[in-house]
């Protein structure tokens, strides 16, 4: 078991003929992910690495029965691509694209909920269930199969922590990169709940950062509804207020969203919070 994806996931790549989309499709296929095909409007009928390319998601889903979609198209087209996937009946949409306007995401999120589709991201590295499948850009070498669930707002920080765990012989059930944007489809709480209910996951590593209050909500959930131990790290203790630290969502605004307040809440909820991410494997051993 795992959460969200396993070896049975059938994946379509939106933007499969693009540079990024194509590059990562190949890596996903090498990893063993079942890529059923892809969509690039205007390139329907072509083939990519032996997989069919369609003009529309509707045609792609009808033909392949895929249930997962990876959105790799540029920001100006990404909101439309997510809605197209939701409308075509995809159950799980992973959107890697950064720089989508928040106003668009709010509409997209409402539409996904209406269509019963779960969105991961945007501005995220995707998902990986080590040994089974990966959907997104998480490098294959950062994790081995195991029983730690990892949920994170960030990309390379996650790779760093995953890799440190692997070097100490600690494996991972699923990595979920939820993304660093202000409005995202799946939150820490959603993923914690899935890990809590997943028999293969024994402990959880949560990697948060400044901005918003998703870590505070996570702390409430840990306190009230979780039995599994959680180790956490919150990036941005040294970040000045009012400045956006790379991720669109990483900003301490009007005194809200600071690392200190999040660390305090997580500690009060019983999570073990590391001051240095290299301590995380030790907290999970």
């Amino acid at each position, binding site marked *: 078991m795992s959460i969200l994806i396993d070896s049975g996931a059938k994946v379509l790549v939106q933007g499969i003929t693009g540079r990024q989309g194509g590059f990562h499709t190949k890596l996903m296929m090498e990893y063993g992910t079942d890529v059923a095909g892809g969509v690039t409007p205007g390139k329907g009928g072509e083939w990519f690495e032996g997989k069919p390319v369609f003009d529309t998601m509707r045609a792609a889903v009808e033909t392949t029965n895929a249930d997962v979609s990876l959105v790799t198209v540029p920001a100006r087209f990404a909101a439309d691509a997510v809605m197209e996937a939701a409308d075509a009946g995809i159950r799980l949409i992973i959107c890697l694209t950064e720089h989508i306007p*928040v106003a668009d995401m*709010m*509409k997209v999120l409402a539409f996904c909920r209406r269509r019963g589709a779960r969105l991961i991201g945007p501005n995220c590295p995707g998902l990986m269930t080590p040994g089974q499948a990966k959907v997104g850009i998480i490098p294959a070498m950062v994790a081995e199969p195991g029983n730690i669930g990892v949920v994170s707002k960030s990309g390379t920080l996650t790779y760093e922590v995953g890799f440190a765990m692997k070097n100490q012989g600690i494996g991972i059930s699923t990595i979920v990169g939820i993304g660093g944007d202000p409005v995202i489809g799946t939150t820490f709480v959603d993923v914690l709940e899935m890990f809590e209910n997943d028999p293969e996951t024994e402990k959880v590593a949560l990697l948060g950062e400044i901005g918003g209050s998703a870590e505070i909500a996570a702390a409430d959930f840990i306190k009230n509804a979780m039995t599994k131990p959680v180790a956490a790290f919150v990036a941005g203790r*040294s970040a000045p207020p009012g400045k956006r630290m790379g991720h669109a969502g990483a900003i301490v605004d009007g005194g809200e969203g600071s690392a200190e307040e999040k660390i305090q809440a997580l500690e009060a909820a019983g999570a073990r919070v590391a001051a*240095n*991410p290299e301590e995380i494997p030790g907290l999970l051993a």
Partner: protein
Amino acid sequence: MKLHEYQSKFLFRDYGIPIPQGKVATTAEDAFEIASELGGLVVVKAQVRVGGRGKAGGVKVARDAEEARRYADQILGMEIKGLRVEKVLVDPGADIKQEIYLAITNDRGAGMPLIMASMEGGMDIEELNRERPGAIIREHVEPILGLQNYQMTYIASAMGLPRARWRDFGTVLAGLYECYLQSDAELAEINPLVITGEGALLAVDGKVIIDDNALFRQPALVEDHDTSDEQESERLAREAGITYIKLDGQIGCMVNGAGLAMTTMDMTKLYGDDDGIGPANFLDIGGGATPEQVAAALRIILSDANVKCVLFNIFGGITRCDEVADGILTAYNEVKPAVPMIIRLQGTNAAEGNQIIDAAQIPNISSAETLTEAAQRAVAAVKQGA
């Protein structure tokens, strides 16, 4: 992207929200002219994009044009929280009977626009929220439906607005929502929205922040954007497509990925804070870390004279660390920094990458294995150099 008060209010006016008939002056003489035209009492307001202008002496009430000239002369060129005042807004004085707070913002958690309104306007919303959270009415808007009439009635009634003002308030709120929507604002705030002695509504102060990710479809706002308070190094980085934020520490940080970049900053502070040592910047070099990118980023980091050491922290996932190491050495040879550089590579081919760094035998470059070691050595290097 933050707008000035005057830009925010002029934008409100485009959406049918009544604002004072003021104008912007860049000289004391202009301020005198504007005040003479307006006649009577005027308010001279510093146009800087920080809070607390009033407390800093940047907002003054002048009884006549002569006094307006004097105040403008004082305020122009003044520094408020490190920002130089280049412009003042000269507004006619308003006859204030009641101050209302009204704002629309993106509620991140709910993923919906949120309207906040209160009869206790004028003060800082964070302060009001701390002291009297019950005095703020909050109403979400369904993003697909938009603002509905019943919601405006609810807000007006729940906040205790006199019935005679409901209609005008509805016009202001509908205008503000349209403004928020059309401008891709992440915040559109009127504080205070004033009820005058004659019972009219007037947006006396305004603040609008535009979503940076939506600037591609806001050409008029971008055109009008004032970049005079942007740091030189931040401008260079923006033009090079690198995310860079200048901080006031001594350790320059070059990292791939925003989360890891923040973490690297945190580590320098964790080990250096006791000695007053910390990060000089946030810098995310992005995915590839090619020699050209590294050289551009290195120049930007070194343009800050406070930098006494540069710490590289690169996680090679799909990028290989040996390629990154080559890139760093090429950039080094181009830029030739005098300060020590500590390089920590992790991930794919990290050992090969470190070998390349060590084999180059450049006196001020060394490799570190862990982030902890790298941060501690960077702190030690700053202490030694001091």
